[in-house]
């Protein structure tokens, strides 16, 4: 490669690190809102996950005899770690976060060939490990800022790292299920949506779920930033969001006592984070234009189905993994028409 010089003879205009850092930057508004509503826990979790990710990355690179510096600085491990951390409740045992991150980096990423070769989104693999193996810990979300007492930094640190409960009363007093979880559970008991809202006044905010709507809107803002910076393209997020909106609208229109509103789905749970930051992971997503529309649509369908008929309150992580599975096939069948093949006849 060094003796033979091939065109183009130009400086590179883009690099992987830049892409990954832009993704991190675009996550910041959403994370900030997260801190506001759920306390400083996300920062602690993020730091734990990032440190774990970088250590695992370095260890695996060493084992695989790859150069450390270019891969540690590519930023991909940091993005994986952040995506795991954002999905964790603020009060969350450190060792679980470490397990999830290590599993993501070591198993889902490096054992499949490292950057660019992993078929499944590493962050989602790590996250789903927690969802399946430690479901209880994953549901203990702090009550949002406006709906309950905040837990201070020291208490969070004590719980996350040492496993000591905060001094404030009982654990149940400060935690509550997420809106998606609440609605799902209560609908399962035979209540109507309006009854659920009456029982849980904090959900009354136009049915979006206090805090979660704002967080989603800020992830949407970050996503628009990524679109503007051309880090991602519109196809996957737009097709995923439209699919969720269509499914939710049909269900809502058919029976609004048993189905939450489309806005509740669009601005609840991990919808926006998933659409702009997770589903768009280039390595594991479809890369052809038509394929990306199908891929996003598939994630939308699975997310909605799992939310409504599955055993988990949210389905983004599972939906992404399921579509990761289908991406190579989608790509194969959606290859674009090559210039000069079946030429157009316009003149």
């Amino acid at each position, binding site marked *: *490669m*060094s003796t*033979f*010089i*091939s*065109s*183009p*003879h*130009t*400086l*590179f*205009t*883009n*690099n*992987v690190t*830049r*892409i990954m850092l832009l993704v991190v930057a675009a996550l910041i508004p959403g994370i900030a809102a997260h801190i506001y509503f759920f306390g400083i826990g996300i920062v602690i979790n993020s730091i734990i996950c990032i440190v774990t990710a970088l250590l695992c990355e370095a260890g695996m690179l060493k084992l695989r005899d790859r*150069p450390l510096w*270019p*891969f540690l600085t*590519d930023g*991909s491990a940091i993005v994986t770690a952040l995506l795991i951390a954002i999905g964790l409740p603020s009060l969350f045992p450190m060792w679980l976060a470490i397990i999830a991150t290590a599993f993501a980096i070591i198993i889902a990423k490096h054992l499949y*060939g*490292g*950057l*660019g*070769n992993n078929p499944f989104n590493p962050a989602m693999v790590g996250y789903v490990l927690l969802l399946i193996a430690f479901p209880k810990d994953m549901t203990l979300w702090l009550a949002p800022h406006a709906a309950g007492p905040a837990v201070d930094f020291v208490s969070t640190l004590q719980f996350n790292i040492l496993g000591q409960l905060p001094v404030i009363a009982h654990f149940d007093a400060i935690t509550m299920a997420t809106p998606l979880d609440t609605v799902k559970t209560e609908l399962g008991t035979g209540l109507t949506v309006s009854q659920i809202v009456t029982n849980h006044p904090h959900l009354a905010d136009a049915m979006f779920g206090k805090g979660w709507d704002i967080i989603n809107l800020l992830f949407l803002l970050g996503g628009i930033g990524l679109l503007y910076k051309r880090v991602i*393209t519109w196809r996957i997020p737009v097709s995923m969001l439209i699919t969720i909106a269509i499914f939710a609208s049909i269900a809502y229109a058919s029976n609004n006592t048993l189905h939450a509103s489309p806005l509740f789905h669009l601005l609840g749970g991990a919808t926006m984070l998933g659409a702009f930051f997770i589903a768009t992971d*280039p*390595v594991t*997503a479809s*890369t*052809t234009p038509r394929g990306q529309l199908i891929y996003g649509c598939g994630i939308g369908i699975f997310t909605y189905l799992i939310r409504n008929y599955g055993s988990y309150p949210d389905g983004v992580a599972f939906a992404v993994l399921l579509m990761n599975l289908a991406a190579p096939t989608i*790509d194969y069948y959606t*290859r*674009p*028409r*090559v*210039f*000069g*093949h079946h*030429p*157009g006849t*316009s*003149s």
Partner: protein
Amino acid sequence: MSIPRKLWRIHGGLHLPGHKAESMQQPITDAPVPPELILPLQQHIGNVATPIVNVGDRVLKNQIIARAEGYVSVPIHASSSGTVIAIEPRVIPHPSHLTDTCIVIATDGKDEATPVAAVLSDYRQMDPAELRNRIRDAGIVGLGGAGFPAFIKLNPGPQLKIHTLILNGAECEPYITCDAMLMQEQPRAILDGLRIMQHALHAQRCIIGIEDNKPAALQALQAALHTDEHTLIEIVAVPTLYPAGGEKQLIKTLTGLEVPSHQLPASVGVICHNVATAYSIAQAISHQQPLIERIVTVAGPAIPKACNYRVRLGTPMKYLIEHTGASPSLPARLIMGGPMMGFAINDLQTPVIKTTNCLLALTSQELPKTQFELPCIRCGECARACPAQLLPQQLFWHAHAKDFDKIQDFNLFDCIECGCCSYVCPSHIPLVQYYRFAKTEIWAKEREKSKSDIARQRHEFHLQRLERKKREDEERKRKKKEMLDKVTQTDSAADAKKAAIAAALQRAQAKKATQASPQNVEHLSEQQRQQIDEIDKRRANPSTVASQPGKDNES
């Protein structure tokens, strides 16, 4: 003025920094004749020209020094007068940096030309075949890129009707301005060349496509257009978007026609020539001036004063670069062509040839610091940039895996090597290099295969010949044996006769022996004895009959 033409969009492409202004500050300047001209025998695709001069010969400017060999070939002319001092391998401008046979002329400074023959110079009175011959004899090849002999592209054959003749003045690569300057300075000659080609092709309409970042060129051509040419020739500004000047891309932009994969533009009724080729054709037909010089842009950050030069073919690059006032040492990278598709030159003695449109001298600042390549993250930037609508990430994957069947499934050979994919790749993968590697591997395999096919055929013929020889030998042996067999058969027939006779005699004797001593005959009467004798006599008769050959076999 014609109505603005509807333009079609091409897929992908890049908005690159143009760097065009630097070399357009001054008019085209004549570069002096160098002391030594190096003229490679192969300057384009096709057959190598055959030298018709010898070392020591004095040659004049415009004199043919190597004649065309076969159809895809044009002659080479001496670019100045002087003496042939060598016909030997020299470094030629080629990505391989290899040497090839060149005619080397030591110039005498007189620049003495061959006398111009007084021939018809009005193209309207020439038939297309004569025009093509004159264009071939003038040594004209496409001056835009690949350097395909121009006369062949004026001969699409009787079965293809050409409706549109396109002149490519897009010049989309950064830094290169030789076509832009020529259009500014010689618009009428370019239009004359276009008219000649239009006459040769009987094209119904002509379009000159120029990127809209060259307003001066557009204006100059528009102004040079004769009033009666407005309906025939359209001068169209196309959006500045690399690679708008790719032949198939320009045809699509201007006409909406997509040249089918693996076919020539003529298949959709279009022929595309470069503006500089049109200029050279006008020179050849109207002034009997063969192609001995061309405009070369000498530019780049390592050149203090970028400029376009009218350079004699065969001029060593070192001479030209020194002439610009730049340092005579090799810059960090010297490129023949543009930054996107040009190739590196690593010997300054390499000559300027017919296809040298630009010498680009880059300093290390314009080149990537490291060559480290990260894995492909499948971001798809390359697919968005690809003007051929390929999936470069998939091509890369299969090239990397050396899966040459699969890579052709993904239409590797529709890749025009424009470099857009490599330019945008965040992982800094030299994608084009991988595709070139794959292409050459496939070509090599095909050559190997055709070689082995030929070898196999030969082997099969050989086996057939052996087989035939064997059959013939056997036939001969069989015939000989038959002949021999005939002889031995007659012998054995005689033996059999003898044996039969002997056997019969033996049997007869045996019979006689049994009959010789009849039992209980002592007390017989005379009459009885006579009767016995008679019977014996009768018996003896058949035994004599039996002893005859033939009948013996039946017994």
